[in-house]
């Protein structure tokens, strides 16, 4: 009997199709569902309105992250609307028997940080959350993507959503990364090549030396930003790095179940000869530390390059001029040396321990620039504790930085961590949209190393100049 060469994506997708609807979407089974305070309350209201219950409460996990404060978390939340959402999440979780890691819980943190660090995210799973950066979990060889609130209600009530199968794209990056180039630079580079809509309609598999040699934290950073080129998600085949990361985690399989899972996980890779609808190949040697200059994540360049002119970009002239006008930048200007006001390190993109290690590697022995306000926000309490245990907090304190408490923070500015209008922020988060970090805020997306270099010099600086 001949077998067909199959992609990793097909293997996982096809294993979750409960029913195929002719001329319609697949009825798609969901293994893990994460919920947070912002996109779930209306879904629970919907359940109540229809008199439905939660079909599998043990497959849904709740954490509060989007609008939680990052200082004085022991005090009542001041903003009454935020407090109300947090209370609704707590009450809904209690009512339906859903695990809830609310504010003050030692397991609390950003949903896409706490899922993996507690072993909830596993290879071969389907994972959804009412948050587009759910693509993060694809780093484990899972199919993970963001959904809307109507779909949250579907998953709660039936553990399924209706989903047309996306097309398949493979992005291969081979070679060795240059000094000072981090996973964030790799993904910003890819998005700059494909544009902010270049992978819409596709699910991406990342393959090649660069991803094989990457840590789990790095893979999560890359998969996290898949949505920023329009892809529903991105995934990387699980390997020894993945298995070693998962083993021993709180909710990871143990004993016989571990062996059973491991045997299955080892089958989760793209077979030789399997085909994709689209493929791109890049050379790691071409990637330098990246920075964005515009108002979508596709508007990125190598840090030593100049801002492109309108005729060099894909978007229409009016759209391009609007973007540069918002940023207060001009065509053909260099990015190096631009004065900045804020630095934000954190978020589901770069809020894990490796990110703070990278940040500290440049900060060590230097001082925070006087013109810079820095918000340093761990992705979870676990990461916060690692920062303390590894002596990173001492390095930060010595350099004049303060550590805040976990949450989404200035990535989307739903809490008080808002960049003021007109100010420039070098941010390790994922979106540089107009007003994303506060009304009128101007965001330059970059890696933790670029953020650190900006934080100690006060201007956009090539981190390679500060690496010994």
């Amino acid at each position, binding site marked *: 009997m001949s077998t067909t060469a199959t992609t990793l994506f097909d293997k996982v997708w096809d294993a979750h199709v409960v029913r195929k609807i002719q001329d319609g979407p697949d009825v798609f089974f969901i293994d893990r569902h994460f919920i947070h305070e912002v996109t779930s309350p209306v879904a629970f209201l919907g359940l109540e309105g229809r008199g439905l219950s939660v079909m599998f409460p043990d497959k849904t996990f709740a954490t509060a992250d989007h609008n939680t404060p990052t200082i004085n978390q022991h005090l009542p939340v001041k903003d009454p609307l935020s407090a109300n959402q947090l209370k609704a999440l707590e009450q809904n979780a209690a009512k339906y028997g859903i695990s809830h890691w609310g504010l003050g819980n030692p397991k609390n943190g950003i949903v896409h940080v706490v899922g993996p660090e507690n072993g909830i995210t596993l290879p071969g799973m389907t994972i959804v959350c009412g948050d587009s950066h759910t693509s993060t979990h694809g780093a484990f060889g899972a199919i993970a993507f963001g959904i809307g609130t109507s779909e949250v209600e579907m998953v709660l009530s039936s553990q399924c959503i209706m989903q047309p199968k996306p097309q398949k794209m493979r992005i291969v990056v081979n070679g060795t990364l240059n000094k000072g180039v981090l996973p964030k630079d790799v993904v910003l580079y890819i998005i700059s090549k494909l544009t902010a809509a270049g992978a819409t309609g596709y699910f991406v598999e990342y393959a090649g030396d660069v991803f094989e040699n990457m840590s789990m934290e790095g893979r999560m950073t890359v998969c996290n930003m898949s949505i920023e080129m329009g892809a529903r998600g991105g995934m990387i085949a699980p390997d020894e790095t993945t298995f070693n990361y998962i083993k021993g985690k709180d909710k990871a399989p143990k004993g016989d179940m571990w062996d059973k899972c491991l045997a299955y996980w080892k089958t989760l890779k793209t077979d030789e000869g399997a085909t994709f609808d689209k493929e791109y190949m890049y050379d790691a040697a071409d990637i330098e530390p990246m920075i964005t200059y515009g108002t979508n994540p596709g508007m990125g360049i190598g840090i030593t390059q100049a801002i492109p002119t309108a005729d060099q970009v894909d978007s229409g002239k009016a759209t391009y001029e609007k973007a540069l006008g918002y940023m207060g930048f001009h065509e053909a200007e260099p990015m190096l040396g631009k004065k900045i006001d804020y630095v934000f390190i954190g978020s589901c993109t770069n809020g894990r321990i490796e990110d703070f290690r990278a940040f500290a590697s440049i900060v060590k022995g230097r001082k925070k620039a006087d013109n810079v306000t820095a918000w340093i926000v761990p992705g979870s309490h676990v990461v916060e504790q690692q920062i303390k245990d590894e002596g990173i907090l001492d390095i930060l304190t010595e350099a004049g930085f303060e550590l805040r408490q976990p949450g989404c923070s200035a990535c989307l500015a*739903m809490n008080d961590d808002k960049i003021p209008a007109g100010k420039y922020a070098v941010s390790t988060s994922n979106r540089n949209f107009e007003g994303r970090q506060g009304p009128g805020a101007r965001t330059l997306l970059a890696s933790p190393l670029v953020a650190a270099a900006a934080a100690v010099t006060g201007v956009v600086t090539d981190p390679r100049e500060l690496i010994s």
Partner: protein
Amino acid sequence: MAYDKFTVLKSTAVPLPIENVDTDQIIPARFLKATERKGFGDNLFRDWRYNNDDTPKQDFVLNNPIYSGKILVAGKNFGSGSSREHAAWAIYDYGFRCVVSSFFADIFKNNSINIGILPVTVSAGFLDKIFKAIEADPKAELEVNLPEQTITILPTGEQESFDINGYKKHNLTNGFDDIDYLQAMKQEIGAFASNRLY
């Protein structure tokens, strides 16, 4: 949540010829703090529509009384970014029932159909024709015919057909949603779940 059935919509349209309109522009994050689905239309395109002191920005299209209607026509890659369904809610709540663009972000497109907004994808050339027709006459009407899957610029008679899968079309024309469908197959889902490894 129940929505109005969608069959044939004849309406003037509001033009927004900007590309890559992300959901943070459609509804900024600071307006996502409600625990009920109401009032989102007031903050549709909030930061493009209002100054910091809440006075309307006169040059933004929604503040221009010449333009009105139930159809929003936008540049390519509309609805990118965050998965917030609040963006679709804001568009629906404001009074739009149809969004026309040459390219939509996936999650926004799903969210729209799920709440009863019809996203119509047209060719870049046809999108240009629509913008030109509205520029020539802001009262120019479009007709979006879901059963026939066509969109027509009425003053010129130019027409293009659009894609939608049969299942979603059936839902929209009848006002059904996916939850009705899924509830009817819970036994099948339960059996499927019991065979999962985790």
